[in-house]
């Protein structure tokens, strides 16, 4: 098992490198480089541009040297925990990013867990009672949820709560708790706020997971071993849960690989609409003002988050299926 995990981690290295190259390409794309943009901005605000500062910045990012050198300077800085500076905020990117990235990870994780908690039983029930009213209802829900853009759902929810209940559901904390340290009261406050983004984010994913679970289980239900179990007089519920469900679970677990990127993508939009203190709005702002070191760090970190998620799903898969562990 340990060998398997190590092998997986080793397999992540090329992917991580590829993501870092991608993030670097995005950083490099806008015309002009960091220092000239920075200088132009300072000049615009009427301050004096200190050429020594500019020179040291050029030195730090290796500007003017070739792209490969710049890349290694950038990635070398990251290895030491230095993601560069955000010129819009005049702060190191690290100071801006970790808290918000943590919130993004927290929301994504909660959503993932709840998505599984809902889609698994509904998917199983839907397959076991194929063509029942519940099956049709869940199928209709699934198609509708997959067709609704996340942000639209968020806005409709905002609209409904504002119009009909007179409360606004934006944000993650009440103003009183915004800067307070974590406590039980703050946790409760978080829960009363976080259900909105979690609900919005989870709907589409839950829908597709229900479809996947249903299809997987339907493939298994008509196999002879199920028939054999039934003939031997196993109670139906126990029969389905013990045998075919476990087989059908494998493709389900491996969906983390694409559910997680979709979640992080969706989180970005939803948090912008709902104005959450997560990575999304900051990234969007960074991109709009072409604050590229900040944007690059986000792309890198969200890619890293996905890789970690995939690793966890691989490990879970290996635990549930010895064929994968031993091959």
């Amino acid at each position, binding site marked *: 098992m340990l060998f398997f995990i190590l092998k997986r981690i080793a397999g992540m290295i090329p992917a991580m490198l590829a993501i870092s190259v991608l993030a670097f390409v995005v950083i490099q794309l806008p015309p002009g480089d960091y220092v000239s943009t920075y200088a132009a901005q300072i000049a615009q605000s009427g301050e004096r541009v200190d050429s020594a500062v500019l020179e040291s910045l050029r030195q730090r990012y290796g500007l003017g040297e070739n792209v490969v050198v710049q890349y290694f300077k950038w990635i070398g800085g990251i290895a030491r925990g230095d993601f560069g500076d955000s010129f819009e905020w005049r702060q190191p990117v690290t100071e801006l990013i970790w808290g918000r990235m943590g919130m993004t990870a927290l929301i994504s994780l909660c959503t993932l867990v709840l998505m599984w908690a809902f889609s698994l039983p509904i998917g199983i029930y839907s397959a076991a009672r194929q063509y029942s009213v519940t099956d049709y209802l869940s199928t209709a829900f699934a198609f509708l949820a997959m067709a609704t853009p996340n*942000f639209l759902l968020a*806005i409709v929810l905002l*609209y409904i709560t504002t119009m009909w209940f007179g409360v606004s559901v934006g944000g993650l904390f009440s103003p009183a708790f915004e800067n307070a340290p974590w406590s039980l009261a703050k946790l409760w406050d978080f829960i009363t706020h976080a259900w909105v983004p979690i609900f919005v984010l989870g709907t589409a994913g839950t829908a597709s997971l229900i479809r996947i679970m249903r299809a997987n289980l339907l493939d298994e239900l008509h196999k002879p071993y199920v028939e054999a179990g039934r003939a031997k007089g196993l109670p139906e519920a126990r029969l389905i849960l013990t045998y075919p469900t476990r087989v059908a679970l494998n493709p389900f677990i491996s969906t983390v690989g694409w559910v997680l990127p979709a979640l992080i993508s969706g989180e970005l*939009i939803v948090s912008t609409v709902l104005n959450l203190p997560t990575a999304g709005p900051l990234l969007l702002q960074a*991109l709009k003002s072409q604050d590229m070191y900040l944007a690059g760090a*986000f792309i890198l970190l969200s*890619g890293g988050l996905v890789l970690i998620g995939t690793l966890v799903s691989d490990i879970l898969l290996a635990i549930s299926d010895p064929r994968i562990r031993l091959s």
Partner: protein
Amino acid sequence: MTLEKPFNEDDLLDQQINAGQLQAAGQWAMVWNKFRKHRLAVVALFVVGFIYFVALFAEFLAPYDPGKFDPRYTFAPPQGIGLFVDDGAGGSHFQPHVTGFDIVLNPTSFRREFTPDPSQVIPIGFFVAGQTYKMWGLFETNLHFIGPLDPSQPMFLVGADRLGRDLLSRTIHGTRISMSIGLVGVGLSLLIGMILGGISGYRGGMIDRVIQRVIEFIRSVPTIPLWLGLAAAMPKDWPPLQVYFSILVILSLIGWTEIARVVRGRFLSLRTDDFVIAARLDGVSEFRLIMRHMMPSLYSHIIAAITLAIPNMILAETSLSFLGLGLQPPIVSWGVLLQDTQNLRAITQAPWLFVPGICVVVAVLSLNFLGDGVRDAADPYAK
């Protein structure tokens, strides 16, 4: 004495077909037969057909130019269509019309308050003369499918936006951009996906492994941040058409993987099919083998993959434009129109701003159903 031919069922079938006693269904006829059984997909086909019809004839179907604004009608609510007009003498005659507004500026909220004023009858009709436009950029005309008989009168069938522009006209014009982004973007993805997926499945080996890794990698990157990153790198002073095509390229650079996966899978399974091996042993050239023998059994699968990829493109474009990093005004797409809904005050005052969102949901839903139906019908020989 004639030597009797041994009985052969195929010969008999051939004879019957030639004699017109039996009909042989070609592959496409079989696909169609199977598709028809999927009721929802058939309905979806009509809906999708209708949406593309609207996209094609946007200028003609829209009552107004999408840019025509009138500040007097800021957030004017939708007007219902009435069919009969009182002629004052107790009788009434048939005259389709909308009712004009009594506009009062609320002195505290500074909002315009609209109350329908039944005395202002604005007759409307089909095939009326309105603003002139150039149909498909080819010829000038002023014929509109529906509109007020007097073009200077207001007609807002689904309401107006914050600049007093007709939301119906804008949504119809947005249909063209949003639906064409889906179609053209998928066309581009198809090109990349077919070539790379084909090579991957046909060649196998090292090339296959490399392409598969690339696909896996692209699928593991969260798409929105990446799209945003690429879109943000576009210079802000580019003309709208250039932005449109850049967005297309950005969307398809990531969207080709699903099509490549389908094509590869089919190529892999076809490669060892008897008829392909037979053709190869017969000395058919590789190009002819792929184009003449393998491709025909791929078409229906590719159509299914395309139909399922279009809604993703539409959703992606809508999200990008909604965030302000996709298409920019004056281009009108559903995503651009939905930007207005970001303002909570605006939507509480004018909930009809959600109409383009409903269009997105309907379009995506019906394309998904259509794609499902096509995918099930794609292999008519399976049970």
